[in-house]
């Protein structure tokens, strides 16, 4: 087709300008909602501009004009095909509370990835425990030097309150802030490393389990089983499940990325992944507070039996929350729709 650029531009420019101003108008509007008449106009201008674009796409004719039209078409396309959430849809404080039920629902929907995370951690635990049990020399390799090699010394120091960095509630508070952010960051990393097809996630979980198993066996061997339980359980009851949930999110992500692109359901999956992250972040806030304010107090101040009981109660509450809160039948519905959708 022979195209006289100058005439073409002179003829069509008014339309482009109208489309441009319509888009600018939309941009300046806070709710970005189209009135019906405008929607019709947008559709029409979009179609016309798109066909104008098709006419200049050929060859190397007028690159700036082509770029300009491409940008116009791209923006109009975005407005036409994407329903922006309105302000009233976003501002739903009550809806935000739904996260407390949506999280356990997502957790149950993806429970097989949780099982996988538990399995990997358990393998690490078993290896760590067995290594320490049958090869005491491995302690040097597995455990940080000053920290956990000599439980007797450590326990005495802890109980006497020597070695305590946290003399006051002030320092405990500052410590809890650090714990919370550090733990959430590690969890995010565990969940994000799903992009390594789950290998990174598995390694982190395994290492975590390894340490846990080694410490548990080491302390129990030397007769400090109760101490270490009382020391770790009050915050561990939330911290360990949350790192497992991070692993769950990581494996979920890995599975998602292994799917074919068209089967990914990115929108739903992103929501699911975010729900798991949000849930574990809330759990870690609690765990951080417990670790700083509660776990670090030992026998004369807080009886070990009491600490263990508190930890056990937390664990029961968490289990009930994760298994029972929210709609029960959620497990069946989405997988069914996905099965139908993928056909």
């Amino acid at each position, binding site marked *: *087709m*022979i*195209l*006289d*650029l*100058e*005439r073409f531009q002179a003829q069509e*420019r008014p339309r*482009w*300008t109208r489309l*441009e101003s319509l888009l600018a108008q939309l941009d300046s509007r806070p709710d970005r909602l189209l009135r019906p008449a405008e929607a019709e106009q947008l559709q029409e201008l979009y179609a016309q501009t*798109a066909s104008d*674009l*098709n006419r200049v*796409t*050929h*060859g*190397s*004719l*007028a690159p*700036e*004009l082509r*770029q*300009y039209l*491409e*940008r*116009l*078409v*791209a*923006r109009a*396309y*975005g407005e036409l*095909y*994407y329903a*922006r*959430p309105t302000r009233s849809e*976003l501002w739903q404080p009550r809806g935000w509370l739904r996260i407390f039920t949506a999280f356990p629902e997502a957790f149950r929907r993806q429970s097989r990835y949780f099982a996988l995370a538990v399995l990997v951690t358990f393998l690490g635990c078993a290896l760590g425990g067995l290594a320490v049990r049958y090869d005491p020399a491995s302690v040097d390799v597995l455990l940080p030097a000053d920290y956990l090699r000599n439980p007797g010394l450590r326990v005495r120091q802890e109980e006497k309150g020597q070695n305590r960095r946290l003399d006051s*509630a*002030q320092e*405990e*508070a*500052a410590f*809890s*802030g650090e714990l*919370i*952010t550090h733990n*959430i*960051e590690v969890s*995010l*990393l565990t969940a*994000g*490393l*799903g*992009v390594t097809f789950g290998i990174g996630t598995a390694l982190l979980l395994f290492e975590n389990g390894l340490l846990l198993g080694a410490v548990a066996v080491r302390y129990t061997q030397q007769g400090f089983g109760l101490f270490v339980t009382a020391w770790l359980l009050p915050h561990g009851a939330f911290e360990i499940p949350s790192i497992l949930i991070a692993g769950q999110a990581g494996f979920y992500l890995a599975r998602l*990325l292994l799917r074919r692109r068209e089967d*990914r359901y*990115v929108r739903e999956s*992103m929501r699911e992944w*975010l729900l798991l*992250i949000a849930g574990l972040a809330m759990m870690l806030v609690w765990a951080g507070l417990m670790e700083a304010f509660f776990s670090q107090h030992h026998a004369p101040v807080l009886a070990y039996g009491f600490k263990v009981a508190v930890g056990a109660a937390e664990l029961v509450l968490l289990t009930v929350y994760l298994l029972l809160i929210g709609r029960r039948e959620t497990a069946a519905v989405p997988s069914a729709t996905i099965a139908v959708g993928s056909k």
Partner: protein
Amino acid sequence: MKDLETKRLPTSTELTIATPEGVLFRLPLAGPASRLYAMLVDTAIVLAGLNGLGYLVYLIFAKVPGFGAMTITLLEFAIGFAYGALLEGFWNGQTVGKRLFHLRVTDESGLPLRIEQAWVRNLMRVVDALPLAYLVGGASVLSSPVMQRFGDRVAGTLVVREAPLAAPYEEASNQQKYNSFTEYPAIAIRLRRAATPDLAGLIQDALRRRNELAPYARREIYREVAAYLQAEIARFPDELVEMLSDEQYLNNAIDVLFRDQRLSRVQTCVTELVK
């Protein structure tokens, strides 16, 4: 020419989107450098904001500095992620830094990104920032055909370049008052009939790019094209051609090819001649 075009591979700096109506348009992708600059600006803004907030918290928690420290630590952490996620989510894919450097985050399909996607790609910074200075993310961008870091791959997003929207200014072309070709209507009509659209486009392009070409190249190209037209398409009388420069020759030719009004004048001449 057709073949060449279909065979041309997509370059790494743009992505072609096909809409459901069959419209094709290209999105220019943002390279790592401009993204880095935008990130530095954003980091500076976040740090400045945090400093201000820190002072405020310090005043509020003067009596309980420990809790103040805790608040700051948590705020710093939350804002680090929320700054990008909220701005990109609610400001159509732009943070302040991205706006400054004309970048925008969009969905892979060219649509605006969703709020969930904004959160995912910002939370995934934890992975992309490994082991230091965003090495993992940078490697991912360089190895990705559409310049995605891992956060973008997971969230299904792209960072595109977005120059300000402005219609190109067409310089008033050298429309001459008088076209000597119209004195030879029969030859002009032959030129119109025999010139293919590709040839017409070629001439138009050669003239439009007048100022982009080096003088000797321009002379050479115009000479070749004019000679080709004269030899193969429509032969104007030598005494006319000798008076015209090659550029003038091409201007006349393009005038004949495109100007409808003049064509109608030519046609009326033709019809008069026939009568």
